[in-house]
């Protein structure tokens, strides 16, 4: 402990520190606060039904489950049989978008629509498509909404409070709950999942963008307005250039989040790779499930890295 240097005893130096006001002491309040905190924590641990003992005895069980997952079984990914390629179609007829006779075209359509999304690669591609589509649509809507929900660019106070209210309300709904709603509304599949991602991402991006707009340098806005510019011109010349880095980095960040969200949405049948993973676990195909988990991890890592590099480029 290094204390403040004390003045000399003989009084040869004036007691400077004597005049320094001491920080106020709040011992009683701190103690009470700490007690309350401990109480709440204890209450939470109690409610969470933590039983460390069972966890300890369960370790062999966990090890066994992990053991059953090893080694990962990649046959579903690598074996061409699991893709059920239609025998009457050559690979070029199947994969290249050239016109083919009508019966073959129908066969091709059916394979792309129904068979391919059931495969691991197909479901992974679908996950990426869902995340991309959901994020893009969300950006298209959230971009104007962000201006409406920002104090300094909203055309009217009523619009400002209205959009904020709607955004705040919708944002409280988790995307999984939205997924359940849309699965009930439009049926199982990627469409339901994509709308769920779109709605949730719109609320989050709208909020983030509105905050970004509120943080701009107002002096620039005033300078542009003073040149005789109209509302749109002020947005384009003074506001947009200032928020553009945020727009890009928020969107990429949401894309990362949505890849993860899209893979979870499969659990409720809203498309994506999560559905396959769930099926594998439910049917005790642990080795297959672990392969899918690994594919998922790889996917998330690739997207995270790609968006990191993109962000570095722009910002």
């Amino acid at each position, binding site marked *: 402990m290094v204390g403040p240097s004390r003045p000399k005893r003989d009084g040869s130096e004036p007691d400077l520190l004597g005049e320094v006001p001491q920080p106020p002491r709040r011992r009683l309040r701190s103690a009470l606060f700490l007690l309350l905190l401990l109480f709440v924590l204890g209450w939470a641990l109690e409610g969470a039904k933590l039983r460390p003992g069972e966890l300890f005895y369960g370790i062999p069980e966990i090890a066994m489950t992990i053991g059953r997952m090893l080694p990962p079984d990649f046959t579903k990914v690598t074996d061409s049989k699991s893709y059920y390629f239609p025998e009457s179609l050559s690979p070029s007829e199947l994969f290249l978008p050239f016109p083919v006779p009508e019966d073959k075209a129908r066969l091709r359509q059916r394979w792309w629509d129904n068979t391919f999304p059931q495969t691991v690669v197909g479901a992974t591609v679908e996950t990426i498509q869902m995340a991309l589509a959901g994020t893009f649509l969300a950006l298209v809507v959230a971009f104007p909404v962000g201006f409406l929900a920002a*104090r300094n660019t909203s055309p009217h106070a009523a619009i400002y409070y209205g959009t904020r209210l709607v955004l705040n309300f919708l944002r409280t709904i988790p995307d999984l709950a939205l997924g359940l709603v849309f699965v009930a509304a439009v049926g199982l599949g990627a469409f339901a999942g994509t709308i769920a991602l779109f709605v949730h991402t719109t609320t989050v991006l709208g909020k983030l963008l509105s905050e970004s707009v509120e943080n701009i340098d107002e002096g620039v806005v*005033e300078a542009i307005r003073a040149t*005789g510019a109209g509302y749109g011109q002020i947005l384009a010349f003074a506001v947009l250039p200032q928020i553009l*880095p945020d727009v890009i980095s928020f969107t990429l960040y949401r894309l990362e989040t949505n890849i993860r969200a899209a893979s979870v949405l499969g659990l409720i049948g809203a498309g994506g790779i999560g559905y396959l993973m769930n099926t594998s676990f439910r049917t005790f195909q642990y080795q297959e499930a672990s392969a899918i988990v690994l594919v998922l991890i790889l996917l998330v890592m690739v997207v995270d890295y790609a968006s990191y590099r993109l962000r570095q480029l722009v910002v």
Partner: protein
Amino acid sequence: MRERVAMAYQYRLEKVGKVFGRRQIALARIDFVVQRGEKVALIGPSGAGKTSLFRILNCTLRPSSGKLWINGDEIESLHGRRLREVRRKIGTIYQQHNLVPRLKVIHNVLSGRLGRWSAFRSLASLMRPLEVELAWSALKQVGIEEKIFTRTDELSGGQQQRVAIARVLVQDPEVILADEPVSSVDPSLAASIVNLLIDIGRDTHKTLLMNLHSVDLALAYFPRVIGIKNGVALFDLSPDKIDDRLLEDLYSGHLPPSDQEKVAHAESNALAYP
């Protein structure tokens, strides 16, 4: 007949006041007339209301009381397109430059054209700059034409101030308002920038109003100096009539209020004055 008399004035202010919030008095009562082509310096302690006055003069802030005529137009009655038309004829140079740091110099300069451009033209210019020759000649006039395609935040403070001047040049207004244009550049540069602005004003017959921190510059370069303190004009004289006693009065007993600027800014944030 009345109209014609009014047209000779650039600015006419009658008991103009501005109150922020409930009690933050930025301007108490300002009366003056500025003729077309006149060069006027405003001096006074910080917090005296000079910046608020300039924001009223360039129509980005409405006065709370009093009347303001610009070129014979009563400003209170103006809205929308006609208000923007008046703003277009007033170019402002700010102490903080107020340029977009991420944009290239040319876009910041060309933003002076916005009052003349359609929305579509403005967007097109952000993609690929229009009227490059105009921006070039303006930058050449302030001596930094080689920076035309540089990002603005890569320039020094003095260079950015020149970009702000070039923006006003392409705006080609009738009035130039310069709010502390030299307080963020070093003293040797300050005189040359004031000189530049005075030359521009004289060559193109523009009215020039300048807020100045430096009393010396104001007295040396301007034929008319207005001293502002606590929101009122303390004096309005030619520099040879301004003596040390007047200046002492102007700057004495003044402690800049700490929260005044904050309130002033908070109120001006919204686009409530479109």
